[in-house]
């Protein structure tokens, strides 16, 4: 290589100031003596400037959330992405932590510059502290329940029911809500605690139906004339609090379970809103106002299903204040027309089931969404959620409260039949069994691969997944007279563990089952969740021997 060629090779490093002093001097001398080298240096500098002028791309807004959710998913399905040994990061195994992770990134991105002790009075830090507290509590509880789960999954015990969970449902975590409601004091509402079990699934809707059917057919099966669900005298009210968003706003989600009387009361209060007649009742908990999007959904008749209007409401901060009750009465904004809900439906008619996400929880980008969803059998139990929506990631924790505030919107309808069944077909065990069997078959196909992978990873015999595989591959049509509820599913096991934990902790606590959609975006839909509340003291799964399973191998 000639001397000039060597100098040429040094030009870039010279340009970057990366040459040793002696080399630097040599290049400078050469540049002084050779105009073409200087020309080349100038061109290289121009190249560097051109490259430096390319605009930087920012990460998508939801990248952090997706990372943390994926961490959660990985922890659930045992992906190698999650540390499996050493115990250092064993926390990732516990699902409750994922919410704290999301919280951390949401809050953290906002307040990282404000984390000194001196600044702890800043508003967002209330959430940060709450998140910390929640994280600690969830960890403790998750560990406890994980141990319990381990105990209940002793060899030979769960094999009969398929052991692990199908379709991305391998995990169970129960956590006692640990969060007081900082900065949210709802007048007249007594804060109470409930136990909570979180189940993750790839197929939220199917799993939710499965859980509901499990409860119906195995645990809290209603007599024809009795209520299913929340028939105990005290009503149970439960609020989910979403904390933290990029703009330091809090998001609040409110879910209410009500009795007949309360529903009537609430509906009467909703009427002015529904008909667009002036302002809603002077309520600290519900406002539908102009300057933000809001959406109200109720349980509509299937054939009517009106398209929701959009009304404008206050921003999330104001919403929070409204829920706190402090400023709500001071605001005199007018309301915009909100959709007319179907009139209360007669018993036996079927309501259109509205998943939480249906009403814009996952799809709307601003404002509040209010969605009603019907649960229960003949008992007109219902719940409503008010959800202020912000742009960025969110996390939630359940903070059940007891006694119903005086004013909230509610719809009521019985909705116990499997949705795949014609409305005219009577609900019965054979129907449920058949329907659930179909669900199992459809889920099983997706699930057995996960199950196999999980078994291989853990070095466990493939017996559990054999059951599933049989179910999935053969897709047998269940015997109409047999209920398959819970069979071959980890659901049963999960619920049993939840009940055991519930009893162990406090037999009188209600139990909240939360289903979370697992994984990344699914066809553009972000994670959704669905909740099922089991009233206090109610047994979920009988501890007696389950019904025979025709799909089980001898």
């Amino acid at each position, binding site marked *: 290589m000639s001397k000039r060629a060597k100098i040429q090779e040094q030009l*870039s490093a010279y340009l970057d100031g990366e040459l040793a002093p002696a080399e630097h001097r040599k290049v400078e001398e050469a540049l002084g003596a050779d105009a073409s080298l200087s020309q080349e240096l100038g061109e290289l500098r*121009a190249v560097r400037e*051109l490259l430096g002028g390319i605009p930087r791309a920012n990460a998508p807004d939801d990248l952090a959330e997706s990372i943390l959710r994926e961490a959660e998913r990985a922890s659930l399905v045992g992906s190698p992405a999650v540390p499996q040994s050493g115990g250092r*990061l064993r926390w990732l195994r516990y699902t409750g*932590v994922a919410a704290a992770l999301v919280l951390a990134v949401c809050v953290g991105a906002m307040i*990282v510059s*404000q984390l000194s002790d001196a600044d702890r009075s800043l508003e967002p830090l209330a959430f940060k502290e709450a998140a910390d507290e929640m*994280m600690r509590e969830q960890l403790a509880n998750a560990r406890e329940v994980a141990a319990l789960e381990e105990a209940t999954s002793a060899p030979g015990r769960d094999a009969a029911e398929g052991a692990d969970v199908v379709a991305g449902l391998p995990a169970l975590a129960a956590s006692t809500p640990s969060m007081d409601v900082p900065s949210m004091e709802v007048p007249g509402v007594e804060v109470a605690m409930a136990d909570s079990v979180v189940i993750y699934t790839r197929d939220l809707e199917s799993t939710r139906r499965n859980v509901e059917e499990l409860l119906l057919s195995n645990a809290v099966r209603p007599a024809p004339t009795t209520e299913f669900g929340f028939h105990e005298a005290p009503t149970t009210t439960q609020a989910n609090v979403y904390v933290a968003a990029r703009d330091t706003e809090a998001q609040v989600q409110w879910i209410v379970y009500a009795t007949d009387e309360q529903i009537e009361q609430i509906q009467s209060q909703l009427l002015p809103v529904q008909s667009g007649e002036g302002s809603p009742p002077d309520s600290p908990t519900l406002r539908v106002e102009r300057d933000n999007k809001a959406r109200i959904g109720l349980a509509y008749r299937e054939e009517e299903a009106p398209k929701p209007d959009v009304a404008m409401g206050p921003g999330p901060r104001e919403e929070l204040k409204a829920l706190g009750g402090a400023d709500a009465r001071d605001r005199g904004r007018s309301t915009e027309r909100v959709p007319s809900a179907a009139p209360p439906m007669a018993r036996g008619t079927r309501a259109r089931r509205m998943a939480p996400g249906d009403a814009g929880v996952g799809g709307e980008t601003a404002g509040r969404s209010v969605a009603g969803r019907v649960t229960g059998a003949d008992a007109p139990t219902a719940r409503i959620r008010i959800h202020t929506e912000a742009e960025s990631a969110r996390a939630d924790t359940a903070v059940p409260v007891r006694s119903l505030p005086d004013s909230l919107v509610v719809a009521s309808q019985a909705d116990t039949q499997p949705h795949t069944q014609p409305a005219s077909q009577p609900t019965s065990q054979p129907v449920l069994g058949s329907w659930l069997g179909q669900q199992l078959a459809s889920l099983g196909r997706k699930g057995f691969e996960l199950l196999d992978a999980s078994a291989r990873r853990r070095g466990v015999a493939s017996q559990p997944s054999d059951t599933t595989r049989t179910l999935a591959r053969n897709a047998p049509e269940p015997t109409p007279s047999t209920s398959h509820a819970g069979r071959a599913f980890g659901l049963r096991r999960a619920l049993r563990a939840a009940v055991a934990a519930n009893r162990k902790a406090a037999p009188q606590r209600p139990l909240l089952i939360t289903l979370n959609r697992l994984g990344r975006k699914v066809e553009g839909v972000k994670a959704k969740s669905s909740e099922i509340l089991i009233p206090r003291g109610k047994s979920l799964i009988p501890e007696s021997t389950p019904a025979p399973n025709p799909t089980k191998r001898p």
Partner: protein
Amino acid sequence: VTDQPSNIVAGRAADEHAETPKGAIAFEDAALVQRTRKGDMQAFALLVAKYQDRIFNLILRMCPRRAEAEELAQDTFLRAMERIGQFRGNSKFYTWLFRIAANLTISHLRRAGRVRFQSLSGPRELEGSQADALTSRMAERRQAGPPAAAMRDETRRRVERALLELDEEFRLVVILRDMENMDYGEISQATGLPSGTVKSRLHRAREALREKLADLIDTK
């Protein structure tokens, strides 16, 4: 290095608040890593928040399909989380993180096949979403009249295209140096290459770009 990551406060948040608020604490990576090792998820989340933009930008310049870049960025952080116990602090955390990103991305590109990323139609996906493109165009319009803006836009496209035509190994070092402002030592850590190799690859990459962009350079 003009943009020391350790001085960045919460990534994008720092961009929006150029001045560190009074009483602010700029977290050092080492402290965050230490906390993450102990299971402090908030610390890990802060690391994500802090570096997500830079990691994503690196990957997107290497792999211009946004969806794939998002996946790779996600995988980068998950891999980092998985292996954070192996990070001994012999290098800076962000160079370690960049190394993970670079390895994942190059592996991905090799699996996918290079030709895929050398489309003659140009790196259209590099422009990002329509919103990004619109924002970019609007920013340019604010600064200059339509002809000048159009020229800048075209110049940018040309540079991006030329960059994508480089082999991955060369593209990586030039991105790390000229877009991420890493010094050679950091590039060496981030790529695992000896510094001499970094130096030669960088020079060859710039020479290649000089040829590809000769007409642009002449007009400057």
